[in-house]
């Protein structure tokens, strides 16, 4: 056989292999391109780097918590407490810095530790006591929200030089300007990518999500992995709360109400299987971009009211879940 055709065939089969492995990812990318293209055609000025970066920076804290949620969903679990943890963290750090004059670094450390500890605690209850994840994380949501309001029922403004410095920071790459929260989202996504797809921990999570019993029989440390993933998610949510405080310049205990639903929707739109065992962190990035595109398009339009956002996200969720269902059935 000729060497050239062999090489060509290899190329074709490699592409085919890539497509069949990443079908969900490719579909999601195409949907994003189609949506962004349609919005660019319909609205003047939509097709610009400013709008594109805005997709990331406007949803930075939502995106950061969506990365944690992705990992939990990989393992076949669910965490409904992230929105409440964001609210708690934001008021917790703001109060510590403003009213107790604690150094921001220490306040962030305490907040991240609190978020991780709550997550780990829920993970222990879910794994070792075999309690349903949604119920325990609902209880966790009540706890975190209540604790946030306990600290303060009103929002506390943060006026610290470090906050002004960080929220004002911008990185210019060519003509594209990335604000600090967009950079943090990108960093978290890259970290999440390494954790999910290039470590033993990530593979264990996917194995648990695929079939927990098989994972146990394979000798994988499922207890450690399951408790850790809820702790990692708690960490991500706390980080998201800190980033949200940069973004708004204040801590507010009612921040992030219902955010967990958006995070789950983003993960599902990104092609991750809600039953666990299959998915990609970059899918979540695409999910954030799709979510942001719809949001920006509604803003650009000006005639549509904000509630259309919820309806469109719900509709997308329905379409994606049905697609997942029928793809699975065929296999």
């Amino acid at each position: 056989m000729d060497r050239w055709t062999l090489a060509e065939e290899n190329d074709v089969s490699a592409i085919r292999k890539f497509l069949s492995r990443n079908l969900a990812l490719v579909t999601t990318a195409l949907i994003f391109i189609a949506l962004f293209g349609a919005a660019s055609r319909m609205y003047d000025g939509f097709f610009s780097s400013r709008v594109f970066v805005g997709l990331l920076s406007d949803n930075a804290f939502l995106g950061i918590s969506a990365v944690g949620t992705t990992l939990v969903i990989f393992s076949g679990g669910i965490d409904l407490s992230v929105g409440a943890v964001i609210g708690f963290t934001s008021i917790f750090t703001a109060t510590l810095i403003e009213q107790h004059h604690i150094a921001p670094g220490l306040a962030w450390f305490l907040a991240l530790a609190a978020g991780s500890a709550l997550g780990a605690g829920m993970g222990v209850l879910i794994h070792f006591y075999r309690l349903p994840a949604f119920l325990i994380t609902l209880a966790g949501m009540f706890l975190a929200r209540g604790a946030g309001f306990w600290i303060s029922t009103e929002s506390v403004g943060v006026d610290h030089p470090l906050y002004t410095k960080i929220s004002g920071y911008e990185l210019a790459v060519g003509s594209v300007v990335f604000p600090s929260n967009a950079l943090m989202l990108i960093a978290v996504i890259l970290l999440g990518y390494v954790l999910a797809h290039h470590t033993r921990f990530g593979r264990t999570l996917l194995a648990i999500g695929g079939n927990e019993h098989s994972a146990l029989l394979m000798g994988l440390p499922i207890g450690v992995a399951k408790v850790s993933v809820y702790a990692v998610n708690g960490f991500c949510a706390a980080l998201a709360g800190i980033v949200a405080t940069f973004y708004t310049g204040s801590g507010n205990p009612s921040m992030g109400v219902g955010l967990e639903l958006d995070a789950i929707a983003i993960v599902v739109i990104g092609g991750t299987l809600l039953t666990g065992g299959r998915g990609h962190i970059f899918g979540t990035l695409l999910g954030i971009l799709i979510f942001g595109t719809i949001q920006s398009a509604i803003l650009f339009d000006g005639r549509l009211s904000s509630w259309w956002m919820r309806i469109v996200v719900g509709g997308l969720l329905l379409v994606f879940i049905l697609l997942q269902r029928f793809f699975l059935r065929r296999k």
Partner: protein
Amino acid sequence: MKLRAKSPILWPLAGLVALVLLNAVFNPAFLKITVLGGHLYGVPMDILSQGSRTLLVALGMTLVIATGGVDLSVGSVVAITGGVCAVLLQDGHSFALTIAAALGAGLLAGTANGVLVARFGIQPIVATLILMVAGRGLAQLIVGGQVIIIKGAAFEYLANGFFLGLPVAPLLVAALYLATHFVLRRTALGLFIEAVGDNETAARFAGLAATRIKTCAYIFCGACAGLTGVLAAANIMAADAYRAGENMELDAIFAVVVGGTALTGGRFVILGTAIGALLIQTLTTTMYNLGVPPAIAPVPKALLIIGVTLLQSEKVGRWIGGLWRRKTT
């Protein structure tokens, strides 16, 4: 364990009695019921009135959980039907048509959930999450993003009226509980639901129309949520798409779990759910009486639910059982 198996309502009842006694000790006026103009008033009556909505949502939720599922969309359905009521009444439609439309909206929502779960085999949490997300948007669409004030004597009677000296809403809910109990326990229907929840495949092989039974449970739950939307709108005489039914799914699930229905499905205790819902409402009222800010009120509720589920978990059950045996031998 045996004791619990014999009488599933023992623990929730003990909890309710303990909470009421605690209240009565610290606040003697707690149990006082006064008769004013032939109507009964007092804290227990308030608990019944305020708790009637949680009771009604929890009734539907009991059946869904008994099939091994869960319905997260009830809060959104409450907001939708409240909106439907307000818009129809504003346009001058009759009371009967309004109630029928609200009930229809609830039935429709329940059917959507039921089809997704039973026919397409999607996980209940995920399937009902869709309506939970989209539903609140739909509710806001229906009322045009505004809080619509409701006027109408018949509507007000639902929330604040009295029948034979007793408040109407709790009476209505009690009647529904009795009807549901008799329909399920005096026919084989209740057993069918438990069979499907326990082992769907086995139930199907035994000749049960498992898909239809499951769908019906979600439809019933949607109808209950629809009626709750009517009661919730009547309670504040307005439709608030943002706040109506907020966190109601949590209260309902809590009531069902506290009442002794297994979250894994296969067993339900309707009376237990009623006691669970009253327990949660009493807890809420107690905290208001103690002056706990409403925003912090969720914390004790969360601790209660963690405690109750831990008690129901096998591991802790075995541990307690072990303690018991060691003591007796």
